[in-house]
């Protein structure tokens, strides 16, 4: 299974990025081949709609699951149209999260926040 995780740096020592749409990179990890690659998140610097573009990039990458601390409603709307599953991370370590996912210990992310666009409450 291919997993996508928003990360702060393009290395396996990186921590999970607190933001989804504005994460500088996405780690793409394949649990079968154990191969990893990093996707430059072109959405990180966009003025608006970062979540939408980031979600589009992840869908295009062929990921089947995402591990993330949070996800805004626009990104969730894009992902809803796919079979990609959203999981809530347990801590900041990439490896801990991958292991936890393999063991089925991660929970699905169900609190989708309304975004930080300075409207809609935040």
């Amino acid at each position, binding site marked *: 299974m291919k997993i996508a995780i928003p990360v702060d740096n393009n290395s396996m020592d990186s921590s999970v990025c607190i933001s989804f749409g504005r994460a500088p990179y996405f780690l793409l990890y394949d649990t079968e081949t154990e191969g990893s690659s990093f996707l430059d998140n072109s959405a990180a610097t*966009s003025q608006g*709609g970062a979540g*939408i*573009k980031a*979600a589009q990039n992840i869908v295009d990458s062929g990921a089947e699951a995402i591990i993330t601390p949070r996800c805004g409603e*626009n990104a969730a709307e*894009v992902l809803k149209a796919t079979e990609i599953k959203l999981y809530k991370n347990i801590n900041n370590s990439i490896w801990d999260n991958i292991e936890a996912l393999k063991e089925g210990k991660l929970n699905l992310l169900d609190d989708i926040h309304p975004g930080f*666009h300075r409207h809609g409450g935040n």
Partner: protein
Amino acid sequence: MKIAVLSGKGGTGKTLVSVNLAAAAEAAVYIDCDVEEPNGHLFLKPQDIKNEGVAVKLPHADPKLCTGCRTCVDFCKFNALAYIKDRLIVFSEVCHSCGGCLLFCPQKAISEKEREIGLIQSGISGNVRVVSGMMNIGEASGVPVIKKLLRDSRKENKDVFIDCPPGSACMVMESIKDADYCLLVAEPTIFGVHNLEMVYELVRLFQKPFGVVLNKCLEEENPAEDFCLQNQITILGKIPFDLKLGTMNSNGQIASRKHPKYKDLFLNLLETVRKEARHETASDT
């Protein structure tokens, strides 16, 4: 002449100044551009109300024609479009209705649908034609409503008073774009100076002639006045911090219609603004 009334924050007195100036003038148009929470009509209480909807255009892809080439998705700088599972998803709140996706679609698969985002309400209050923009709850931007408000008012030959939204962001820029003169309202506090500075920077950026009205003036020290003096900003007038004026205002009354003293105050202010505006426009040419 079009006079835009602005301030760095809400509650400074934009509406007080706008409605009183409009009421003091012989014939005027009052335009409420504070489309998130218009309140000028609560004072002017216009009659013969007419409503007109404001709509924006949203792209819509014909799934039979769309080949999923994503030209539109890549073009959209606002990321309002996503193409997922053979389907184009449009984020209506993110879309700025620029129409670019429609123009660039190689398959001509995109058409536009209208979506109502607010309305314009107009009526008459004595000598004043009152026009208010009202944005629907939940909408992200009131700019399209303001655009329509001001486009419709271009043919007016009376004095136009534009009651701007608070602050100095997009909606304020849209409101002052066509104004001949900007009137900044300021409060006599340190915080008031901070807010004044924001709109002061904005009107300079737009190279608009402007002046300041000092509101809620007391006998004591006035930091906003000091700021004007230091920066050689024209002070057009002072409105006193007075109980009677405050009471009339909080009861939704227009002081310049109720009391000759305030009528004089706002007539004088109007004269000063006119003189300044003429002077500024003359020195520009």
